[in-house]
């Protein structure tokens, strides 16, 4: 593998581009036949497409249409600005976490909206999800012509099962149906009969239905882990142990949290001679966990991160107009720091052949790589 400043010859390469800000992430996939897809999408500033460098990157590569878009789960850091992407690049395929039906979709949006009323950043994430759902709702109109699939463990997603000639396959490796059922039961139990909210789910509960994808192309395997947590991985390992092994590239799930993997997962996924793992830190929740990074690095050749890994207690709050005494006290008590800059977006790009080798990568700061 080499660190390249030039995009290599595009022919017959599978490309993975991961963008991250320290909050959310966007993942672009270029298939060997030149088609492009997006898995999760995050713009730093709501309503401003220019704040998502993934979209600018698509433009720089001359992309005018998308083959697929996948939304892994209903957390804002995975879909902020996605409705604009759908409008700008209507995909031929839309893959979603399992929603079940329109009523459940509406309940989920209402749930997020009600919870947002209490949050410090109200009334925006639910609106965005509602726009995405609305786009789904309109997708079967002639202008859209988009095929919808819900992803779950073991499901073949792409191409269609009839296309037996394709050397490339995309499969769902999460969520497990058992977890989905439990999630929706818990979600619906949050509502009183009159539709008002009687309780809230833990924030992380939405990770239970997170999609994870595996892209297979001859000997090359890429795992895009979404925010799948321990139980999801355990079930995935049980279901398809022969596929979850010796990957060329892995997007580390759940920002590198210590429950973003299960026992044996990285021993199976990783190959110290070739695996590149890419991390998307989430600074607000102090992720990744250092222990998880140590664990993952033992199994991979290179670990890349789209943003600096910075512990909360090392960050400074610095705002000239605010009372320094006040901010210092908050820093001591709450270990606070200012919301990260929206302009710091790193990119890790990997160019893979069909023999499981990453033939080149590009690291665009503040992203960085470490390893051999």
């Amino acid at each position, binding site marked *: 593998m080499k660190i390249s400043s030039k995009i290599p010859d595009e022919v017959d390469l599978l490309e993975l581009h991961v963008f991250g800000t320290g909050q959310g992430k966007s993942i672009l996939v270029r298939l060997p036949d030149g088609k492009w897809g997006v898995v999760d999408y995050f713009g730093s500033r709501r309503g401003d497409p220019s704040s998502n460098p993934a979209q600018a990157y698509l433009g720089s590569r001359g992309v005018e249409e998308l083959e697929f878009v996948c939304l892994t789960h209903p957390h804002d850091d995975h879909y902020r600005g996605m409705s604009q992407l759908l409008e700008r690049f209507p995909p031929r395929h839309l893959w979603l976490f399992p929603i079940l039906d329109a*009523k459940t979709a509406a309940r989920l949006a209402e749930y997020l909206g009600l919870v947002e009323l209490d949050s410090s950043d109200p009334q925006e994430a639910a609106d965005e999800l509602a726009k995405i759902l609305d786009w789904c709702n309109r997708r079967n109109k002639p202008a859209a012509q988009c095929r919808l699939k819900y992803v779950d463990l073991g499901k073949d997603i792409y191409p269609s099962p009839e296309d037996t000639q394709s050397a490339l396959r995309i499969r769902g490796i999460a969520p497990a149906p058992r977890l989905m059922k439990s999630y929706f039961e818990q979600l619906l139990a949050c509502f009183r009969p009159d539709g008002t909210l009687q309780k809230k789910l833990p924030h992380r509960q939405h990770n239970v239905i997170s999609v994870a994808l595996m892209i297979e192309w001859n000997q090359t395997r890429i795992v895009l882990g979404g925010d799948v947590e321990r139980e999801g991985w355990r079930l995935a390992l049980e279901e398809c142990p022969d596929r979850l092994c010796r990957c060329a590239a892995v997007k580390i799930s759940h920002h590198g949290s210590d429950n973003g993997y299960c026992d044996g997962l990285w021993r199976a996924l990783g190959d110290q001679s070739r695996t590149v793992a890419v991390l998307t830190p989430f600074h607000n929740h102090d992720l990744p966990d250092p222990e998880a990074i140590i664990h993952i690095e033992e199994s991979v050749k290179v670990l890349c991160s789209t943003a600096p890994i910075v512990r*909360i207690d090392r960050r400074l709050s610095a705002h000239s107009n605010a009372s320094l005494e006040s901010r210092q*006290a908050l*820093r001591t008590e709450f270990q606070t*720091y200012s919301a990260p800059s929206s302009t710091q977006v790193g990119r890790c790009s990997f160019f893979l052949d069909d023999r499981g080798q990453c033939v080149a990568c590009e690291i665009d700061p503040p992203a960085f790589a470490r390893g051999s």
Partner: protein
Amino acid sequence: MITVDYAFDDFRPRLEQTLAGDQFHCGNSSFAKDIVYDFQELFNQTLNSTRWGRAIKVSGETEDSRENFPGSAQQVLETFTGHVDAIQKGWAFVTLRDPYGEILNGRYSATDLAKQGIGEGCRFECSTIKIGPNQVRISYRPLPSLSGTPEALRIVRERLSLTLDDENFIEDP
């Protein structure tokens, strides 16, 4: 019998009148402090429940505070609306927003917040209060949830205006 130090002879008539009439008002904190010093024990015994005694006590406390923090009383520096975004591994990850929209993120002991009745998904008010030179105290208290009322549901439904059709959420073959 109350005795007054000779230095305050000029004030004796006023003091005696005040004691009798329970109408003491202290306009000079230094003077008040001396009075408190001389008569503290006696006043504590005999006048604790009178407005006079309370006035002296308040003056004395003010003076004590000023020894530690000259110039003014406690001062609220900033007030934030907080939200517990998530709890992980014993930490409450919080977002603080000031009245001007500035956002701070941080973390705090989830156990300590729970003692105040503040858990995941809860709102709270957080203030920084200057209590002395280089001394800032942080106070926080839970705020009521906005999410569980019919009015909240009406607002959200109006905002989202979701009219989804089941047919359009059926998976394509």
